């Protein structure tokens, strides 16, 4: 009789394992079917709605973000299983520093804990061979978080299978501003280094002068190579949870031609069906967009 509760527990554990295996198998079958069409190379997520989720479920402060982290791990697993090579997430915006100090501090503590956990052997980083980048104005972070981030970047620098870009203390306008500054500095240094030659204005020299003037001007490629996000191609799809339809200063430069999705689900509620739906929509417009890219 005393063995009965133990037996029931073991049975439950066994059933759960079986169900997990069935779901996993079904998911892999689904991914095989989806992979018959084009798969996006780069997916970006704005993880919005954690706090609203906590309020909705009557949880304490901070639990929403923890639930959000679990949802993130699940989404990363699905993305990498599907063969998506780059995933970018909006973890913390420069604007978020304007929130209450207690909330900012608890978010920083949570991020420190999770960043450190990426280095553990059982973490998703090792499971999928993820190279991790931290993109943003890292100088705005406290020393501990910044040090942990740099440690993770260094430790994963040799990984090459898939890439995770974590935007932290990030704003797109700040990223563009830094790129503009660097472009200005580089161009001015180049001009000084090449020196100035005085020409007589003969016909051939006028043409040479025009070319020289053109080279002196900053080009689009100068700005782009100075962007922090230049380590990855542009996102094919940007998914923002919680139903808000705005970019909130995230990847403005890179999402010019990205498909934008705004499922109503709050971030901790995001699931496989939202990802699949986004990819199916992407596949519909893909061939047309590829044709236009070639024309351009």
């Amino acid at each position, binding site marked *: 009789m005393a063995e009965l509760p133990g037996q029931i527990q073991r049975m439950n554990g066994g059933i759960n394992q079986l169900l997990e295996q069935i779901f996993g198998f079904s998911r892999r079958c689904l991914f095989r079917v989806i992979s018959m069409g084009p798969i996006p190379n780069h997916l970006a997520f704005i993880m919005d709605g954690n706090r609203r989720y906590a309020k909705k479920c009557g949880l304490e402060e901070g639990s929403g973000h923890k639930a959000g982290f679990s949802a993130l791990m699940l989404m990363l697993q699905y993305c990498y299983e599907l063969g998506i090579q780059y995933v970018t997430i909006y973890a913390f915006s420069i604007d*978020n520093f304007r929130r209450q100090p207690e909330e900012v501090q608890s978010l920083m503590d949570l991020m420190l804990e999770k960043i450190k956990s990426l280095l553990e052997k059982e973490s998703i980083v090792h499971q999928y061979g993820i190279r991790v980048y931290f993109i943003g104005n890292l100088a705005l972070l406290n020393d501990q978080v910044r040090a942990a981030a740099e440690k993770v970047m260094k430790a994963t620098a040799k990984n090459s299978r898939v890439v995770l870009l974590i935007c932290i203390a990030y704003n797109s306008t700040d990223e563009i501003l830094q790129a503009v500054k660097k472009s200005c500095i580089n161009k001015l240094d180049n001009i000084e280094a090449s020196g100035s030659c005085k020409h007589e204005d003969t016909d051939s020299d006028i043409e040479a002068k025009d070319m020289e003037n053109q080279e002196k001007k900053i080009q689009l490629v100068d700005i782009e190579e100075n962007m922090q996000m230049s380590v990855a191609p542009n996102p094919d799809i940007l998914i923002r949870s919680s139903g808000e339809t705005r970019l909130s200063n995230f990847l403005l430069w890179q999402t010019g031609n990205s498909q934008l999705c705004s499922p109503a689900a709050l971030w901790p509620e995001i699931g496989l069906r939202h990802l699949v739906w986004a990819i199916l929509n992407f596949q519909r417009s893909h061939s047309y967009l590829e044709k236009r890219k070639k024309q351009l």
Partner: protein
Amino acid sequence: MLSLRVPTPTSFRRLHAGRSRLSRDCLFSYSPSFVNRGVRLRVRSTKSEVALTPAEEEEEVTLPEELQPELMPKHVAIIMDGNGRWAKNQGLQPWDGHRAGVEALKEIVELSGRWGIQVLTVFAFSTDNWIRPRIEIDFLFSLFERSLKSEFQNLAKNDVRISIIGDSSKLPKSLLRLINEVEEGTKNNTRLQLIVAVGYSGKYDVLQACRGIAQRVKDGEIDVDEIDEGLIEQELETNCTEFPYPDLLIRTSGELRVSNFLLWQLAYTELFFAQELWPDFGRSGYVEALMSFQQRQRRFGGRKS
């Protein structure tokens, strides 16, 4: 904006004027307020199908009852997509679609002026559109010229100021002359500023701002350390207006992309994707977009306590 063809456009949030049914969204949760909005719209569009009496027409001039005056956006941006598809659906030529697009724009400009919107920016021609057939591009520019000439008096009468932004180096000289005339002639008008983006892209705008800043640094006017977001904002082509950042961006024809329009300026803009093609957009589509905007909670990265 010249229409971008996609075989079967679809979206997460299909917003049909006059229909409350949400196709495919049954898989996902949606806010109840959205359904109510759809029902209200259905009533509204039924009303507009009936011929209006002069008294009702008078009422139409003021703000529709669904919209609250204190929540109206100051700056609305529109990507006018779908002219080509509209023409194809009607069995017409692409240029007929663009002509219909101009008529739709006139209606939206008039409504914006009446409803207290201060700036309306429209994406007429992108840098990416230069790949279109030459005949279509030539037609577009001549249509633009004709429309500007014919509407000039109207604009002056309605106190509308016109500004053109974008790379004008490839535009025909006659059009450039006309643009200068119209900009000069309407520069003191204050009711509504209509900004038409021609030969424009968000990246081009940031690039030209960057070049302007680099020149100022080279001339010793400013130091590199003084370059900040405010300085970039001053150099962008939207410096022609007091409100350079749109509150609301509307894109018609169901495409879910920004397509390189107003890149920097869209940082906190609410986006609205309408299913209708641009020539069909009209008053009801505009009201729906503005209603959606008025229900949004804008936090700018902070928290609403």
